[in-house]
């Protein structure tokens, strides 16, 4: 019962964007408000040009992406072994489940005040929060992945003499991988929010930092540019990386439910 995706958008889809831009352009002529509340399109474009030319925008984007990647790698590296242990051993699972459920419930942004004490403002805090978020999302997916391997496949591998490491590499890891890859998009959606949020509070560079820092100077042109870049970057990442991973692997193996 997974919902059928909507048909691919046509040129019609550009109309609402044009309408928003038109509204933004017309608004100052219709209503009076101080210019700092909402800068003109021209001002935002001009600021975008400046910050691309002097390299600050690119630096901030790269800093954010590097932290996301670091957090993702650390979180996955910790989650997969523990997830396998939980999925394969009932005693480990029984003992760990309440603790992990609880920690999962506070995963992410709530750790920022503590990480500021422990690691200070900057990379350490932000990467910790992303890794923490990705860890719990991937842990769940690893466990689910192993559990969803059909029993008949276990029996088949066993009856051919597959045990121990052979069982792990031939059945359990590939089986868990499917669910992990399916889960990457959701994990990253949480990780992305954690990135932007933790940069806003504990960052010293990056998109979140750039956007929040601008509040004290009431630089709404910076804020709006930051929002647009955050939105565009997520759309691009989602379209080019996560959806492609999903299609190449899960779709090809025929495990995507339709």
């Amino acid at each position, binding site marked *: *019962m997974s*919902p*059928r995706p*909507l*048909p691919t*958008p*046509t040129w*019609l*889809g550009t*109309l*609402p964007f044009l309408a*928003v831009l038109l509204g933004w352009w017309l608004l100052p002529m219709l209503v009076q408000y101080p210019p*700092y*509340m909402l800068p003109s399109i021209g001002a935002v474009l001009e600021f975008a040009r400046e910050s691309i030319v002097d390299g600050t925008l690119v630096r901030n984007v790269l800093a954010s992406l590097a932290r996301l990647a670091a957090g993702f790698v650390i979180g996955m590296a910790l989650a997969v072994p523990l997830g396998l242990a939980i999925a394969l051993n009932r*005693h480990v699972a*029984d*003992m760990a*489940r*309440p*603790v*992990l*459920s*609880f920690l*999962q*419930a*506070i995963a992410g*942004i*709530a*750790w*920022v*005040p*503590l990480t*500021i*004490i*422990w690691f200070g403002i900057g990379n350490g805090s932000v990467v910790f929060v992303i890794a923490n978020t990705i860890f*719990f999302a991937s842990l*769940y997916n690893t*466990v689910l992945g192993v*559990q*969803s391997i059909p029993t008949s496949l276990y029996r088949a591998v066993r009856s051919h003499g597959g045990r121990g490491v052979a069982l792990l590499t031939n059945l359990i890891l590939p089986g868990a991988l499917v669910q992990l890859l399916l*889960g990457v998009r959701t994990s990253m959606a*949480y990780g*992305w*929010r954690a990135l932007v*949020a933790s940069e*806003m*509070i504990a960052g010293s560079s990056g998109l*979140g930092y750039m956007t*929040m820092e601008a*509040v004290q100077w009431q630089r*709404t042109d910076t*804020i709006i540019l*930051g*929002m*647009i870049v*955050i*939105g*565009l970057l*997520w*759309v691009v990442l989602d379209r080019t990386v996560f959806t492609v991973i999903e299609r190449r692997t899960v779709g090809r193996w025929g495990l995507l439910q339709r």
Partner: protein
Amino acid sequence: MSEALALPGVAPARLTRRGVGRFAKGSAGVLLLLAAWQLSVPLVGLSPYFYPAPSDVVAAFVDLMRKGILPVYFLDSMGRYFAGLAAGALLGVAGGVLIGLNRTVALTLSPLLRFLFAIVEVAWIPIFVVWFGYGWKTILLALVYVVFFPVLYNTLVGVRTAPQALVNALRSLGANRVQVLRYAILPAALPGIITGLRVGAGFAFRGLVFAEIVAAKTGIGYLIFEGTQTQQTARTIVGMVVMGLTWLAIDQCYLRPIERATIQRWGLTVDAEQRA
């Protein structure tokens, strides 16, 4: 993601021997963690500002309860959360049904909606702060925003899955628009609505904590932030514990029963209708 390691195919713990055993082992896990934490404090030897012990946290909890701070903060947070959730869900369902009824409208609007959802609620908070200041308006708007889009999008997709044969049959039997909506479209959209609500509820809970860290002077998120600012790290941990237990309670008592009562029942019904 919010499924909280509830393993598929495993019934919730009941008073069976297996259930009791699992409860005992689970409690042992929790106690083990707490004991390790308490014992590690003298070994680590850092000040309670960096690394408070469980006993410090309990003391901070008692203190916050006695002063009446925690109950007030908790109720403030819950008020914001459920107000945001309800408003976002209502707007999302209404918008999703209205947009979803017409194929052209759905096609036209969906790229913009997807882009707006990609600008995560977290990214809106700075501009909300400039527009509305630090306070409940900013927090509530962020929550409505983060619930609205998943509910809207999933409702939209759900409405589009309403079997056309069923709609045609109802029409030819003389059903009016409201009846078509009531008997064909809403039941088809319901699993999507619930999925959207679940996703939104999970994002909104973390969004609440973040918004309270940035823009509130009360609430659990504020408690978490304020604790470290005033060198009372134990208070921060009280806030984190309350946050975790609250989410587990919301998930167990509220979201999961709804899901069981709707998706599992209605989802199957709709599926059977589509196949027929």
